[in-house]
């Protein structure tokens, strides 16, 4: 699997190349915008890791040019938050995903794998958020190295939460996800289900905000 890394900072580039090689990927590393644009045009890559602030030609211009030329190589943008805030969201420009610097390496690798998998057309049955992985086919949930099967209702709760990480879902919102029409809702069913999930893994897998509901944190490292 070949990855194109376009990053001008030597220290970051070196660290990323090392990390990707450790994860059994081969890496072509270019350090300026023009070289990056050319490499992207001629090479066959599984993924491009693109820094936005580049000498010669900005990452946004590379992205725009490549998409205009019909290049469909998946692009994961790595950028500083303020650069992201200053410009339009990287996703609007045709990037497949973006990651804010500084980031956690595990997070980066998970995103890289997810983008590649999604792009290669493999039916991705796994919903990921940080170090949580939920297999929608087998109802297996992995959290920090522990994998266990969830009951149908536990699965429904986790799926609802993982679909919108960082968003607090209220009791009634969760109940809607768990129960079908006409099914009788037990008063404390959601609390019981969350209690079970927390007991199976760790209590911090789901956060409770009193008066609001439950959430899984976004981009948890």
């Amino acid at each position, binding site marked *: 699997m070949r990855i194109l890394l376009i990053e001008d900072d030597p220290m970051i580039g070196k660290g990323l190349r090392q990390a990707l090689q450790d994860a059994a990927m081969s890496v072509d590393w270019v350090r300026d915008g023009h070289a990056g644009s050319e490499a992207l045009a001629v090479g066959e890559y599984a993924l491009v890791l693109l820094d936005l602030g580049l000498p010669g030609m900005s990452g946004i211009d590379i992205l725009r040019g490549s998409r205009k030329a019909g290049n469909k190589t998946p692009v994961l943008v790595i950028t500083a938050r303020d650069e992201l805030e200053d410009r339009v969201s990287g996703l609007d420009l045709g990037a497949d995903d973006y990651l804010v610097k*500084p980031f956690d390496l595990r997070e980066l690798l998970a995103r890289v794998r997810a983008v590649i998998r999604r792009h290669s057309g493999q039916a991705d049955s796994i919903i990921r958020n940080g170090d949580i992985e939920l297999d929608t086919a087998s109802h297996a949930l992995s959290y920090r190295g522990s994998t266990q099967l969830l009951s149908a209702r536990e699965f429904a709760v986790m799926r609802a939460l993982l679909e919108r990480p960082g968003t607090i879902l209220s009791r009634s919102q969760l109940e809607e996800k768990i129960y079908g029409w006409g099914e009788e809702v037990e008063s404390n069913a959601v609390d019981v289900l969350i209690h079970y999930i927390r007991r199976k893994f760790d209590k911090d897998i789901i956060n409770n905000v009193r008066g609001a509901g439950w959430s899984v944190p976004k981009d948890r490292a």
Partner: protein
Amino acid sequence: MSLRRTAFLWFAGLMAVVGILAAATSYWLVRGEAAVFLDSQLRQVALYVGDAPDSPALPNVVEHDPEDDFLIQVWDATGHTLRNSDPAIGVERRGRTGFMTVSESGEDWRVFTLVTPLRTVQVSQRIQVRQELATEAALRAALPIALLIPLTWLVLSWIIDRIMVRLNRIAVAVSHRDPLDAQPIPVEGVPAEILPFVQSINQLIQRLRALIERQRRFVSDAAHELRSPLSALQIQIGNLRTANRDPRLEDLLADMDAGVRRSSGLVGQLLRLARYDADAVKPTDGQIDLTAITLACMAQIAPLAEQKSIDLGIVRKDTAQCLGHAADFGVIIGNLIDNAVRHTPVGGAVDVAVIRDGEAVTVEVADNGGGIAPENMPRIFERFFRAAPQETEGSGLGLAIAKAAAERNRATISVENRMDGPGLLTRVRVAAR
């Protein structure tokens, strides 16, 4: 002393001295002239007076004081009195033609004697009357000048005011300036005399502006430059953790990782603050929902609260629409809740409330931690000031950032110790929409 006062005092003094001298001079001149005039009157009377022993009794047409009358005496060659206008008084007959001043019956008289071979005419006038007449004339001459002195003061004051108004205009323009306003003071209409002064101030402002700009850019550049090595360091620590097979190193690496993260966080805060300083006006306003933003912030902070077993909850969720920049309000509310969770001891509680009251929306964050010592209250918005004990993680920039973000969104932040028990109550308040 002000220029206006100095100028007024000098000019007013000068005018007063000139006026008094002019008045005094005319007084003395008129007095002297009056004496000459009265003397010639005496002589005139002496030349044309008749010999009739007495004037026919005239009706007393004009009210007058007999004291004011001349005393007219006529003698023939032998010294026989032909005429005496007031027999009660007699001024002794003189032998020579000419003026004299004599004392007679306890009064001073001015006397003119005209001696001819046929008769002697003597006309006398009381000195006191003459002096009264002279003084009166002199005063009439001096009075207008004396009256003009205060009038000139008024005019002078008005003229100086008119001149000073132009200076005042500049002074007001300068005093009403925003301390951060880097625009030069306009030089149109500035008097030529103080133009160099205003120009110097403008140069100073320009230099100051450049200095501030350089300072801002330095902070921003420094933070930018720090960010890359910190990111690289974090990546390398990640690589190290992946490669590491020694469980003894795991804790050390985790500590290093936490340290780098904290530094990165600080750099991010510095950048944010530098950006707020650079453009105090936010880019765009939008209709935002403070309840939604508050809930998103709470979801973000929930893991930390969970970790510290802090009961984080929302107690009121009013519909709270306002105008503003969503990211800025995320920063403000996030900082307030983050502070509360960080500074509340393990097992504490943090209550958040979104309240719509009338025309305003308030997001309140109440904790039951230690609060802030009253002596530290005035400094809490200072950059890098930390009211909390050093073991609490934090940079001392959170509230400064929140305040800067609030200012560009016309929101206010207040921080106070709770009245109903230990703990801190922070609020952000903004006009509802």
